[in-house]
Structure formats: C-alpha cells, structure tokens
C-alpha cells in the first residue's frame, strides 16, 4: 500500500497556484481533483482544506473568484490566477527550485567529495 504524505506547510498554496496556471480558471472541486490527480493520490489532504488556502490567496490578491456555471450546469465559484498571482508563482517556483537544488547536492554528496 502506498504511504500517503502530509502536505508540507505552505506547499498547498503553491500547488493551487500552479494548477490554476496550467489549467486556467477552475472551481474549488476541480482544483481539489486536479491536485489529487497530479500528485498521484499520494497526498493525504482533505479536499475542504483547500478553502482556507484559497481564501488567503484571494485576500492577498493572487487569485480572483466569481460565480459561474460548471460543466454540468451547476452554480460554482471559479478561481483564476491574477497578475499578482503569476508573479507570486514565479517567485515561489524559483525559491522551490533553489531549495530543491540545494537539497539535491546534499543527497549526492559523498565523503570523498569533501576530503
């Protein structure tokens, strides 16, 4: 059985931003589904947990939301990335890549490299 991972603090916001960046405007359910799908169902996140995160992003101006009709003609609130959100995503992505690169070097390091 696959071990499900807890979400690292703050990464959920980045996942939301990236999902909206790739797929364009989505409603809350859609975002939750896509994140599950992209992570390969490895994340142990209740879908409701996205809502506080999206509210925070909205308060920061990174996403905007409005009512619309969903694919099966239901009323749903659609979220989309704003200009601020794009900038935020770029900055955060750079930060993550840097962190990942640094961590990678630590994993690659061997005792003889440092002697």
């Amino acid at each position, binding site marked *: 059985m696959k071990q499900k991972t807890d979400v690292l603090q703050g990464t959920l916001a980045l996942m939301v931003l990236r999902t909206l960046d790739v797929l364009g405007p989505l409603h*809350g359910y859609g975002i939750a589904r896509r994140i599950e799908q992209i992570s390969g169902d490895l994340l142990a996140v209740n879908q409701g947990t996205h809502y506080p995160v999206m509210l925070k992003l909205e*308060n920061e101006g990174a996403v905007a939301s409005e009512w619309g009709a969903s694919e099966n003609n239901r009323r749903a609130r659609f979220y989309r990335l704003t200009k601020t959100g794009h900038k935020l995503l770029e900055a955060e992505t750079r930060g993550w890549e840097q962190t990942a690169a640094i961590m990678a070097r630590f994993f690659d390091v061997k005792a003889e490299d440092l002697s």
Partner: protein
Amino acid sequence: MRLLRRFLARLANFATRQQADQRLREEMEEHLAFLTAENLRNGMPPEEARRQAVLKFGAMGTIKEQCHAEQGLPFIETLLQDVRYALRLFAKSPGFAAIAVLTMALGIGATTAIFSVVDATLLHPLLYPHPAQLVKVEDDLPGINGAREVGISIPEWKDLEHSGIFQYVSLMGGGSANLTGSLQPERIAFFSVTPNYLATLGVKPELGRWFDPDDQTPGFTLDVLISDGLWKRAYGGDPHIVGKSLRLDNDLYRIIGVMPAGFHDPGRTTERRNTELWAASGFAAAPAPLPQRNSRLTLETVGRLKSGLTVAAAQSRLDALVASLQKQFPTDYPAQSAWRVRLVPLKESVVGGVRQSLILLLGAVTLVLLIGCVNVANLMLARASARGHEMAVRQALGAARARLVQQLLTESLLLSLAGGIAGLAILFGARGFLLQMIPESLPRLNDISIRWSVMLFALLASVAAGVMFGLVPAWQTSRTNLIHTLRQEGRGSKGSTEQTQTRRLLVITEFALSLVLMIAAGLLLRSFWDLFKVRLGFNPDHVMSVRLWLPVPNDPKTDIYGTPAQEAPFLRELLHRSASLPGVQEVALGSSAAIPLNHDRNSFPLILEGSGMQKEPPLIELRNVTPGYFHLLEIPLMRGRLFSDLDDARTPQVAVINEAMARMYWPNADPLGKRLRVRPADHTWITVVGVIADARTESLAGASIPQLYLSAYQSREKELAIFLRGQLNTAALPAQVHELVRSINPELPVFGAQTLDDALSASLSERRFSMEMVALFALTALLLAGLGIYGTISYLVSERAHEIGIRLALGAQRAEILEMVLRQGLRLALVGAAVGLVGALIVAHLMAGLLYGVRPTDPLTFVGVSTVLTAVALAACYIPARRAMRVDPLVALRYE
C-alpha cells in the same frame, strides 16, 4: 505589500461578515454535491455516496473555523468580545471600577500635568530654528577670585565673529527706558543688541525689516524693532507703524519692524523674556567705552555655531583661539588671570536652573502613579480571588492560559485608559487654576499647553500603567489551580497563599515608594523652613520699594542729571516730598540694586589702594544709597559711621562696606580709613568710613556676600528706588508716589512698586512650588499606602476569621489577637520602610542641590518620616485588627 493587501481585505471582510459566510457555505455545499455525484457515478448507493463525500471533504467545522479566521481579524474580534465582557463586569461592580478609574485618573492626570511643564521647558526650551546651534559665550577669569561671566570686549567679539566657529555672534545688554510718543508714556524693557541679533536667533520680523546683520555702525543706530505686544498696546496695532518715530529717554528713534507674536528673548528671567523693544548698537562708541581689549562690557554673548559643529568641537577650537590671543596680547591677558571662554548651550542657560526641580517633580509624580498602580493591582487581586471560580470554569472549558491573560489585561487596560481620559479631562478643566500655581520665574511659562506630545504621553502612561497593574493579577489569576478551586465550590473560593504573598509584596512596595517620596518632601520642607526662618539681617516689615529711572540720553550734554552735583538736588527734593506721604515714617533712596532680594547684579571692578594696578581686578557688588537707607532697613552699624547728608559732591567720596567685605579684603587690618576705587577710569579714591553688619539682601541662601555702599549724593545713579517705611496703604501708595514724581519731573515714569514681604515670598516661590508639589504627592502616596495596607490586612483577617475563632475558642485573649494582627501589619510596614530608606538615601543625595541648611542624610527627617509612616500603618491596621478581636468564635466556627 502582500501582507498589507491581505490585511485590508480582511478588514473589509470584517466589516461585511454576513455575505462572506454565506458564500462559503454555498461553495462547500456545491463541493459536496460534486463529490456525491461522482460517488454516485461510481455506483455507490445515495446514502453511502453522501457519507464518503463528507469524509473526503474533511471536518467541516474546523475548515469553517479556519476560513473564518482567514477572512476576518480574529484578534480584534476577541478584543471586542473581551471589551464587551469587561464593560458588563464593571457595570456589575461599579464601586470597584470607579475607585480604579479615579485612582488612575489622579495618577495619570498629575503625571501628565507635570510632563506638560517638562515638555514646554526642558524638551522645547527654545523656539528658534536649529536651537542646538545656539550657544551662550561666557568669559571667565578664574585666576581672579574665581570671577565668572565677566563680560566681553569689542575686539574679542570681533575675534569670535571672524574665528570661523560661528555663523553669527551677537552681543546684547538689557535696560529699560521711558517710552513717550505712544498712546501713553510708559516704562518698557528694551534690549541693546548688535545688528546681527535676529540673524543669530534666526527669526524674521512680522512686519517691516530687521537690522542689517553686517551693519558696522560703532554706536547706536536710531532704528528699533518693537514687540507684537507693544505694537498692539501702545500703537493699537497700527498697520502703518513701520517708519514712524518713538521717543526713548527723550531720544528719537525710528520703528523699522514688528516682531512676531510668539517671539521672546532667550533670557532666563521673566523680565528679559518680556523685552519689548530692540535697538541696534555697535557698542564701540559713546556711551560705550573705547573698544579696547581691557574694557569689558557687561553684555551677554549669544552665538550660532556653524552648522555641523558640535559644542564640544567648537569649544576645543575656541580654546585654541584663546591660547593664541593670550600669546598675542600678553599684557591684556596676563597668565595669572587664566582667561578662558566657555560655550554653554543656550538651552542649558535658559532652563539649567530649574531642571533639577522639574526632574524631581516628574520623579515624585511618577512614584505617585506607581503607588496608584500598586493599589489598583491590589484591588484587582482581591477581585481575582473572588473570580477564581470563573477562571477555573473557563479553563476547564478549554480556554488557553494566554487567552485568559489577554482577557484580564483587556480589563485592566480598559480601566487605565478610562483613567487616562478622565485625567486629561480633569487637566483640561483645571488648567487655568493649575497654571496659576506655577511660579512666574519658571522659564517659558507662557508656552505650557496640552499639545499632542502631552496627549501622547498621557496615552503611553495609561497603557504602561494598565499593563503594570494588570499583568501580575492576570498572571496570578490565570494560574488558578483547577481542581482545587472547583472543589471548593460550596465554601466560596479563597485566594491561594501565593496571592496573599503577592498582596504582601505589593503593600511593601507601596510603603517603600511612599517613604522615598515623604523623605524627599520632608527634606524640601526643612530646607524651605530654614530659609523662611533664616536671620535676614534686615527688617522687611512695613517697607515698600518703588522704582524710577532717570533717562540716559545718548548725548551726555543733554543729560540734566549728568553729574552727582546735578542729580543730588533732585534726590533731596524727592526724599523731602516722599516723607510727607500719608503713613510714611521713614524714607530713603538707593539704586534699584539696593532693593533686597531683587536679584539685580551690579558688580564693579574693585581696586584697593596699595595693591598695585591689577589687570583684572575682582568684582564687588555696589549700591548707592542715601544716609537713611541703613536705618530704614534696620541694618546695624558695627564700626565707624554711616553716610550723612553732608557727604555730597563737594566733599571727599566715602564708602560703607559690610562685614563680609571687610573680612575678605582686610582680614587682619582695620578697614576704616582704607581707600579704594570702583572703576578703573575714575581717579578719585574713596575712603571707607563705616562697616555694617551682614544682611541677606542679595539672596536668602547667601549669608555673607561682600557689598560696597556709596553715598547716592556722590554718584550718578540712574536706576533708582524709593524706600518707604510706615503704616502704608500699599494699594494707594504707588499712585501717590507717581503723582509726587510727576510734580517734580513729569517725564519720569514710576514702576515696580512692591512690599519687601512680597519680594521675600517671591524669592522663595520656586522653592515653595516644588516643596508644595512634592508634599502634595507625598501625602497622596501616604493615603494610598494607608488604604493599601488597610485593604490587605482586612483581607487577611477575613481569611483567617476561622483560625481566629479557633484561637479564641481555645482560650486566646482578645488583646493577643489584636496584637497578632497589628504585628502582621507592622511587619509589612517596617520591611517596606527599610527598603524605602535605601531608595530615599539615593534620592536625597541626587537632590542635594535643591536643599538648603539640611544635609541629605538629615536624621530628624529620616526618623520623623519613618515614624509617621509606621503610625499610619498601625492606624490603618487597627480597624481590621479590632474586627479580628471581635470575631465571635461561635459564628466563625459555624461556617465550617
């Protein structure tokens, strides 16, 4: 940026809570519907589909809570909630709230009042641009009897101006003159200044122009600037005043400008600050002496440093300049005179004299506020023990400790802020009355007001006080032992021993602080009393002095009182006529410096026969008086004779000296018959004919200041005073003297009428003010400390009622119970007093400069104050002790 945006969004949500909640509910509902539909598609039965959807969504409550927190401002919400709760509580116990708010209102109000004085005087003493650049330049000759502030010569002034240290250096000398040609003739204070005076201060006239700062005219220019007050009073605010003329001491001057309304000269005395006219002078031509290095003028020197130059840096450059001048002019600056020039920040010279008093007052009032805080803290603790149960229930229901502390702190801050607002309101209401209490001699008295900085201070003081008296009780209360407290349910909860301990500690603090204050007050009181009761050496009773001034026209030929022979007939006529005024028994004339305690300095260089020509002679206080002066003031003659009517311009000049002068200059010889001169330019020798006893006519604190008296008929004194003794009608006399002087010469104004008793009390006014204030604060502190110990002992007694009942039932004597309680209170008071004594010793040494005739360790004050404090403690404990004594063992035990 993002944070700010988020905050604003939350603030907006906070205001429109309803819609946001609605939206969230709908969104979540939609989400669940999606999930359920998907589950249905996957073949689940409807009920199971819904259940799984809810599971997958997560705990709805928690998520809503999180969203809620993100949307709004939870801190403010809880704050509002706490405030509402606190207000309800206060409404339920209005007595407690009223006492706490009142205590804080008095403490914060008083502290703010004193701060407003400190703010105006110490923090903003100079209302000129870049005040830090302004310095007073003072010449000292420490080699010659430690002479200080000896004045400056014109060549030295030019040296300073060209030294590159200053932007401007301005000389100024005060005086008063008779103003005619205005609405009515009057006596006004004027100031002769170098033309760069306003440039130095950086002030522009409101109307007209200023003097040309580069004007090199050696003598008086005939241009003057007038004050806003004089403009409005004497000229009715005439908008075309510039260019008009006025007469000063009969000389014609042209008004070139009017100063702005708030402008005051940077002088220390009220008289100086009320200067109303400025005339420009180069001080280098008549009537000033020739501009030589050795003729020092008694002028004040104020300079504006080059920007970026600190006082210390300027001083070291100045020292180098002085050293090179000493080398260049060795005959003018002999090494033994040790000439040096000091720079004193102008601010220092204006407020330096009152700084210590004001800091003492601020310290004293802060102590009162602290004691007030301790008292309220004590009250809060008493309430806390009653609220122990409430706190326990709250904790049991899951309230975090920080949350409880926050709630309790909200309550105390609310109390202190209410107190602060009430204090400010009292201050606003009473400010007219309070300002009257401040002695007139305080610099910048007119500028004391409740401005923003003062309000900010009040706010900060309130918050600090609230935290101070709220934190300890809040901490203690929130630490309630849950199980213990809840179990006590039926018996009514009681405070823990820890709380009792804290209350004891608070009482000890209160007593320590009170003792410090009371000892400070006691020392000031003793100083004041000693000064008040000092042997004056003269009799001020039933004596009135009235001043008048003879004009000094710029051209000596037009001066009708130019020589002693010309002036003497006027003086004799004035004496003769004054003697017949109603009620007058004795009358004398003298220079205005001869008015006791008027703080006019009138020093002249003293040259003794046989001592050789000194380059820098010592200075002596000089007064010119008519023969009757000594008898009128009842200053006894010790040796020789006093002046007689025959000592006039035709006979050799004679002098009378006081014992202090005899001791200083002829310590081992008979001064009678010795000869001296008082101005290097005068070539006649003056013979000492009499020695009078020392009298404190210079200052109450100075017992023996050398003084030299000359016969008024042998000198040309322009600043005169008439002294009258008898059963005087002090209200009518000034007008009568005025009339009398006018009948001799209608051009002479009469002013400054005062009784010597008034002068005496005025000279004590600053000391009286700080003494009264500190005494008032000390009494308040004593009262608060008494209340504090009363409250604590009462509480302890009620807590021990049961124990006392058992003791009584087992046969303890009632007197023993009384003694036990009293001993408990006494112990607190004594520990407090012991701690306070240490503090008092430190404070007393810091305030040594404010004391007179009493040492900072005065045993009488220390023992006396400690006794009073102990007595108050005992009295405060006696009431609860009697209650303890009367405990009925039956009643006390029945409660078990």
